[in-house]
């Protein structure tokens, strides 16, 4: 049984660009959450998707947007990248509450 997968593993962008990160949940999981983890910090909740709808959003600007597809996979989009967006972006999938994390996408904004 495959766990949560994310792509790409690493990404380098320049300020002002846009980026799309992808996540495939564990088999049987219908809920996907996205977190941002800055170096040396705990993960910070960005938003959560369930039944293709954004269920709740954390304290992140509208530059961060997402989508969930009918097969439960999800994308995180970040527009107008800032240097401060450099972080590890984590996707977590869940079914009945327990969240399992993927390996993350390391984004570097130059």
């Amino acid at each position, binding site marked *: 049984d495959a766990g949560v997968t994310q792509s790409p593993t690493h990404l380098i962008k320049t300020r002002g660009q846009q980026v799309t990160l992808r996540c495939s949940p564990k088999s049987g999981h219908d809920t996907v959450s996205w977190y941002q983890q800055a170096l040396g910090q705990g993960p910070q909740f960005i938003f959560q998707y369930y039944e293709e709808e954004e269920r709740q959003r954390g304290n992140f600007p509208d530059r961060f947007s997402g989508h969930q597809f009918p097969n439960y996979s999800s994308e995180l989009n970040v527009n107008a990248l800032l240097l401060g967006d450099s972080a590890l972006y*984590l996707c977590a999938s869940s079914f009945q*509450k327990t969240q399992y994390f993927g390996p993350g996408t390391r984004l570097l904004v130059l």
Partner: protein
Amino acid sequence: QQQVKQSPQSLIVQKGGIPIINCAYENTAFDYFPWYQQFPGKGPALLIAIRPDVSEKKEGRFTISFNKSAKQFSLHIMDSQPGDSATYFCAARAGRGYNTDKLIFGTGTRLQVFP
């Protein structure tokens, strides 16, 4: 009220020791408290979790102690091994009525276990 405070920031123990990591919260609506282990360059992996109606839970060498009245919980690692060297995060989930499974994480504890 949405914070989870974690201490210490770092911990060094010898093999066989019992490191203890502590967390505290304010929001009594939190209903689920997981601990995650994270190795460098990897995503957090679920270790063990507890609900507030239970005072202690053990899984292998990992034990959570939960004090509901003090709003504190802690992770104990028995017979620690060098392979346990990692960063540990406590977390809390908002409960019913919040319509979400959002996790709020502590700031992490970097554990080093020396042979």
